């Protein structure tokens, strides 16, 4: 299967270009620091000379630590997802490597699919490492969490992260400029998300997955399957669209 051949190359590229390392280090760093900062921020602030000023901080809780972790993973997931995907197809088209390889028996679907799979694997591994780091420190500083629920939370964050990857991959297919691809993708991600929050349909958007996971960690088992379905749609539809467009494109 040519997708495995292309995946092998993509994976090697993520390692050699240090992208895998960068993503893993960034996510692990924020995985580690989330419980740490939650725990020690009140103490650090209390130690500061405040001269007449009183800073009221609620006592640190495990929920605050989880909330901080989810926020960090979601933010950096989007940023890294866009940054690392924006050049994936556009750059290869612009440089000519796509033309060089796609005259060979390598299908465009495999070429594109391998890129998505490699990026998804990179985020999965990085999130596993970040999740382990955060779990360990939370256990040390607070208490042990429910492992199964922690796993579900991280799986939901993973799916949330795949949305910017899929959308940016579509944008990267549409243009030959990686800057343009990144810009369009950010626009597509930020604008509907912001409007959704204002108009109240945010509970149907991918961001709801993070809320769902956080709720679950607090013991609330209310599900958000509509948001999950929409998230899957926002991963699959851009990928299918990108594939259809890329198949028709002249290189």
């Amino acid at each position, binding site marked *: 299967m040519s997708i495995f051949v292309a995946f092998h*190359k993509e994976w090697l590229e993520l390692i050699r270009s240090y992208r895998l390392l960068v993503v893993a280090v960034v996510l692990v760093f924020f995985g580690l620091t989330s419980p740490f900062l939650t725990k020690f921020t009140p103490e650090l602030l209390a130690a500061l000379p405040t001269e007449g000023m009183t800073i009221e901080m609620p006592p640190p809780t495990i929920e605050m630590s989880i909330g901080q972790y989810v926020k960090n993973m979601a933010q950096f997931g989007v940023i890294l997802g866009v940054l690392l995907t924006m050049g994936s197809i556009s750059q290869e088209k612009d440089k000519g490597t796509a033309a060089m390889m796609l*005259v060979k*028996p390598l299908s465009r679907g495999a070429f594109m699919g391998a890129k998505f799979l490699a990026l998804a694997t990179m985020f999965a591994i990085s999130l596993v490492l970040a999740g382990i780091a955060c779990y360990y420190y939370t256990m040390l500083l607070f208490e042990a969490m429910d492992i199964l629920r922690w796993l579900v939370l991280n799986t939901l964050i993973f799916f949330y992260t795949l949305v910017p990857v899929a959308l940016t991959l579509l944008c990267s297919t549409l243009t030959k400029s990686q800057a343009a691809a990144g810009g369009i993708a950010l626009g597509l991600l930020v604008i509907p998300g912001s409007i959704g929050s204002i108009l109240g349909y945010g509970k149907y958007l991918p961001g709801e997955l993070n809320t769902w996971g956080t709720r679950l960690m607090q013991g609330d088992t209310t599900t958000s399957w509509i948001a999950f379905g929409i998230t899957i749609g926002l991963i699959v539809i851009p990928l299918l669209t990108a594939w259809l467009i890329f198949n028709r494109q*002249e290189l």
Partner: protein
Amino acid sequence: MIAVRTEQLRKVFGQFTALDGLTLSVEEGTIFGFLGPNGAGKTTTIRILTGLAHATSGKAWVFDKDVTTNRNEIARTIGFLPEEPAFYAWMTPREFLDYVGRVFGLPATERSARANELLVLAGLEESAKRRIGGFSRGMRQRLALAQALVNRPKVLFLDEPASALDPEGRKEVLDFIEQLRGQCTVFMSTHILADVERVCDTVGIINRGRLVTEASRDALLAQYAIPAFDVEVDQKTKAELIPWSETLQHETWVKTVSIEGLVAKVIVNDVETAKRELLASITRAGLIPTRYEVVRPSLEDVFLHLVGQEEGQA
């Protein structure tokens, strides 16, 4: 057998017609020089034949397989060198050849052997472990040729393979192509006439998206040969050159005689009579010839003649 064929191929980009009913055929086993000025439609033709672009109308075949409906099958039988080959800079040439081998589904042992063989052929065995990012243009071009040969293609498409190289790099690449004679069909586009004259046995001339002519190189040169002779004389007999030329002008088999320094260019009406009479005439006039030769037409003459004619008609 016909290796490459196009019929009434048209490609339109907005208002610009890149290919305007191109019909050509290339015999198996030949090194075909696809010659034309910049913007004539050479690259567009190759892009359509390799499946990178779609024709607006018309058809194209590689070994009787329609390029639009048999893309995957054709991809297994062709090799392609783009005008500006691009690589993954982080790979070594061995890794790149191995990757191409994987794409063609070659088993590991065959991939390794083929990579070694091609690295030697491309003269890159010493640089096999260096990153491609640090390669010179000539090295990249040779690697690009090597990658196009991984699958032992039946047809090799080369788009301007030597145009951007310095004289040494050009020689290396042309020598490389020369070595392929008899191994596969080479379809080589270029605007450099000397390259075609050196390695190609068949030539197709394209201008404004249309095929101007297609023939074997020798037939083309013979067909458009200028019936002329160059006679260079010794300095000592320079004074006799002008009177001799004036006498020669009156011969029925002579068309014109022009003199430049010690060289007289004699354009004739009848080559066979000229071959018999010219030397005798030189001797009779007391000239001491230091050079006497039938002018060999260059492909440049043919090209300029044909393209000039085409421009005149447009």
